[in-house]
């Protein structure tokens, strides 16, 4: 499902020169697999996910998602691959505040397979928000907003879901419920899940946990 090889990314440092942030020799994730990466803040986890998502362009290396080479593709192709094959759950949810709950989820599929409002409704019902379709994110609790983000990430029927500290903004009880929901919905939809976190409670729920420093040596 996901194959990463010799992936490098560096940024210009304030002192001049470049600071390497990501240098991953090899990483792979099988279809439907759920894995967590443990890493401290500033270790390059988000950059790694952004590279996989095609939001950032790699300096070198190869990322293959479901057989499609993200790194060899130009930006428009990366945009399309992201829209068709990936779901992304952000730590801060990144919901569009001016759009309703339903519209947020519909937008999650609009740039890929196309808008399917019935599917969006189903997903929102699945995450327990069937009665909140026309509310705006600001009218929801943090936990509910997180569930909208989950529904949106799965709206385009992705092969791979990336989750960046998805429970970072939730209290312990909601974090546990939310994580269980993400894993369950991914499983139901046959999507692989790659989650990064520094929170041991979150990581403890995964069977497969890997230290990010084991795969990343910039």
């Amino acid at each position, binding site marked *: 499902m996901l194959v990463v090889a010799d992936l490098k990314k560096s*940024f210009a440092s304030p002192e001049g020169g470049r600071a390497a*942030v990501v240098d991953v020799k090899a990483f792979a994730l099988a279809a439907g697999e759920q894995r967590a990466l443990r*890493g401290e*803040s*500033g*270790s*390059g*986890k*988000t*950059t790694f996910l*952004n590279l996989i*998502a095609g*939001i*950032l362009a790699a300096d070198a290396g190869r990322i293959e998602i479901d057989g499609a080479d993200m790194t060899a593709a130009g*930006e*428009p192709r990366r*945009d*399309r691959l*992201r*829209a*068709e094959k990936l779901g*992304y759950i*952000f*730590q*801060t949810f*990144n*919901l*569009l*505040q*001016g*759009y309703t709950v339903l*519209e947020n989820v*519909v*937008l*999650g599929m*609009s*740039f*890929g397979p196309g*808008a399917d409002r019935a599917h969006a409704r189903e997903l929102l019902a699945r995450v327990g928000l069937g009665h909140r379709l026309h509310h705006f994110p600001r009218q929801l609790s943090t936990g509910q907003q997180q569930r909208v983000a989950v529904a*949106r990430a799965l709206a*385009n029927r992705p092969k791979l879901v990336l989750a*960046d*500290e998805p429970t970072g903004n939730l209290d312990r009880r909601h974090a546990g419920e939310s994580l269980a929901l993400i894993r369950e919905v991914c499983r139901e939809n046959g999507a692989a899940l790659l989650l990064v976190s520094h929170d041991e409670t979150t990581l403890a729920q995964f069977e497969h946990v890997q230290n990010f420093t084991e795969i990343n040596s910039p």
Partner: protein
Amino acid sequence: MILPLVIYRSLRQHALSTLVTAGSIALASGLLMTVWMVKTQSQQAFTRTSTSFDAVLGARGSKLQLVLNAIFHLEASPGNLDQSDYLYIKHHPLVKAAVPIAVGDNLRGYRLVGALTEMFTDIEIAPGKKFELEPGGRLFSADAKEAVAGSFAAARLGLKVGDTFHPFHGLNFNPNEQHTDLYTVVGILKPTNTPADRVVWIPLHGLQTMNGHDPKYATQVSAVLVQLRTPTAGFLLDMMYNRQGNRLTFAWPVAAILADLFDKIGWFDRVLALVAYLVALVAAASVLASIYNSMSARRRDIAILRALGARRRTIFGAVVSESACIGALGALVGFAVYFILFTAVAGVIRAQTGVVLDVGAGGRVLWLCPAGMIALCALGGVVPAVKAYRTPVAETLAPVS
């Protein structure tokens, strides 16, 4: 299908700046359309009105004043002609018809014009069309103290058949200068949409001999409206009256004199048009400024859309389309502004000249102007669209951890 949603939500989120900007576009669009339509329609109307006669003969003076006084019932008469001058041109072999008029009195501000009945029976006010009376009315008798009112004047003065009135001396209403003559309204003319609508017509002889007028002017006329047999006749009469003579003025050709008038007052509508163009430019600039300034607030939304798979060109297109939508909204409201402005201006023109302008009439400017506004606004959206196009997704969404 997603583009309309993105545009709609963005417009809703910035509703105030959208409305203010659309309002200024509406003003510019309405103003431009009004200036253009009033100009073209009034020129057409004035030209159409003047087609009944080829020339006007009057006292020595300005040709324009003569035409405005005799055909459009505006301005003062430059002076009088003797009966012999009228009879001379009436029987001139190059002249098809010569119709005398006399002015100098009014009815509460509406001009009284003395004319012969042939003005109504023989003269066509437009090709194939003569003056017509409303049912129940008739023409005045040449020697009676009777009057026929134009439709606009009758409506404004509240005149109906059987009413009587005392005329007032002069072209401007002065309640202290009332004549003792008593006239009876015997007919109301059907609307002609010409200056004749705002005139009260009485027999020529009646105006000439109005009680209080100097008897020595009792046979004089203010002007003679002339129809020529051939176009070349105008050259000969122009030569005879204007070059060889120095007592009378032969205002010919009427259309050219009016064109000269429009040239002279052209600066006014050019200034108005310039103002409208400037308003349009300011409106387009405000589209640019309002969207550009809101870009900081929109960066996150744009980055989220990009993270969901929206391409840069989709974002670019959304911003340009949003600008065009603001332009379209403004152009739409601009029609309401146009309707209000045009109706007001047309009302003033009708009251002042009798010329009727039609707010429902079509014209190229009615689609060119809105289309131009939309294009101008879309153009104004290009700069913020470029900024949106360049939004860095990863940097905007979250700091590198």
